[in-house]
């Protein structure tokens, strides 16, 4: 089913919102009070505040200080890439579907040893492929793994640099002039990961968000190598309906010069024998107009505004089709900024808001690790 909102949205929707709609978001928003380091008196008792003790302290503080302020989150600003990065270099990150994983901190990962890691990983992949898992002659040996850093894909100065891993196929004949084709691409990044960076010691590198594009078998092999070499753990990052609605609101709030795609939602209706899907597409300018009428303080997004935005869309749908979208599950959100699926797949379309999108995903990844 498709429902398009024409011009002139009927915004006289009576929605009863009392004070009890305020909710508390457990993960810290970037501008909320930062976790405090253990005070001096504690250090007198502990001879050496180990990272584990520091983490216990921060978790304990978070649990007891239940500050019931409504959660707010910053709207992603326009271009937050640092000046020394070339937008062309990160252009290959856009318009590709990435599968998301969360990654625990890497032990003794060093940015100076990238060539060494490339060599080791190439050897590992070749060995794995020749083990008999993929019985193909010739092709698999002509691959090359390249590690590199992605400059500028980070939020603050204290975030570690993003790392890019690519499996390239070596050209078969030296006379051929074509470039090596990327068979598989994966990159690690950390954008505004202050909450995690404070609690780990110097031996660890925190790159909690991992994005992969390519064959699943390659992702598994590379995951195994990283887990063995750096004692870390990958887990797939799923995005639930609650977070998808936050993403929809934040991305609709982004100011865009030109809209390249309609704002589209996909809901999954739980019914037997097969689940039905409801697809709801809105003209992006109408969605922005709706958001602007809901939005109050500039630069911040609150839980109430997100709920009101989604409820407006649901009640409009109910008025036409008599279906309560709130009884279904939001599965996919697609805007001109980015599109996300609940299985942990993301596609970033607008390079201006790359950092903003990654910041929210890093927050989700950190929340999953903790």
């Amino acid at each position, binding site marked *: 089913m498709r429902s398009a909102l024409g011009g002139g949205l009927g915004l006289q929707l009576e929605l009863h919102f009392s004070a009890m*709609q*305020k*909710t*508390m978001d457990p993960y810290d928003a970037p501008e909320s009070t930062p976790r405090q380091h253990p005070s001096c008196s504690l250090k007198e008792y502990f001879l050496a505040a180990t990272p584990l003790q520091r983490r216990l302290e921060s978790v304990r503080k978070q649990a007891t200080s239940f500050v019931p302020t409504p959660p707010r989150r910053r709207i992603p600003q326009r271009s937050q890439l640092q000046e020394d990065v070339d937008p062309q270099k990160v252009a290959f990150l856009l318009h590709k579907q990435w599968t998301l994983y969360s990654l625990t901190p890497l032990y003794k990962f060093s940015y100076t040893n990238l060539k060494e890691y490339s060599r080791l990983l190439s050897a590992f992949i070749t060995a794995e492929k020749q083990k008999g898992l993929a019985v193909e002659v010739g092709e698999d040996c002509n691959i090359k793994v390249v590690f590199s850093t992605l400059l500028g894909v980070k939020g603050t100065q204290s975030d570690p640099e993003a790392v890019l891993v690519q499996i390239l196929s070596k050209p078969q004949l030296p006379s051929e002039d074509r470039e090596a084709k990327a068979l598989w691409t994966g990159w690690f990044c950390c954008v505004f990961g202050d909450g995690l960076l404070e609690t780990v010691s110097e031996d660890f590198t925190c790159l909690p968000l991992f994005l992969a594009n390519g064959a699943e078998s390659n992702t598994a092999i590379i995951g195994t190598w990283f887990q063995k070499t750096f004692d870390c753990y990958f887990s797939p990052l799923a995005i639930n309906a*609650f977070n998808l609605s936050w993403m929809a609101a934040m991305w609709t709030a982004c100011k865009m010069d030109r809209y390249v795609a309609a704002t589209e939602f996909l809901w999954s209706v739980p019914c037997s024998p097969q689940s039905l899907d409801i697809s709801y597409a809105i003209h992006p300018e109408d969605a922005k107009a709706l958001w602007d009428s809901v939005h109050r303080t500039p630069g911040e997004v609150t839980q109430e505004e997100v709920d009101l935005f989604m409820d407006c869309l649901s009640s409009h749908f109910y008025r036409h089709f008599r279906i309560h979208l*709130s*009884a279904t599950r939001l599965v996919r959100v697609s805007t001109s900024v980015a599109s996300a699926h*609940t299985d942990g797949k993301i596609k970033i379309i607008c390079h201006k808001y790359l950092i903003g999108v990654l910041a929210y995903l890093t927050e989700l990844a950190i929340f999953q690790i903790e």
Partner: protein
Amino acid sequence: MSVLRPLDKLPGLNTATVLLVGADDALLQRLADSMLKTDCASELRVHLARSLPLPSNVNRPRVDLLVFVINLHSKYSLQSVEKSLHHVDASFFLGKACFLATGAGRENLCSVHRNTIVRLARTYRSPVLFCDLEVEGSRAAMAQRLARMLQISAGHVPGVSAMSLLSLLRSSESPSLEDL
């Protein structure tokens, strides 16, 4: 619009009635079955309702405990419970009402954040219980717990009243009145 009141009818002899209010019929039915299977000294009666107010043409016993069942996977169940809360007399929230949130364990399917329910329960000064009604073990444990709460609310347990249970269930970390 009739409002549900706790003390407008006389109690039955050795009977305790619980009213489960929630949008998800299947879950309520399973919880009701589990509650009826529990070993209880008093005679338990379980009534199910999708929303309040209840139709007034039916003769029903006095409700001793009111349980609002919210499925965290569906925003609709939260909305219908919120609408039903308007038709409940305030004196129910002195220990005779509680909130039950199900499905918090499966984070990937959650449309409602668990803290929304926590705040709702704090606004109404009532306890909130978390469980997974689709898992047999969790459901049986919760049914036993609710049966015990029901006995106390109906006054069948000497020495413990619904109000004293409410103050016992309030956790030490909950904020004071000024914070809300």
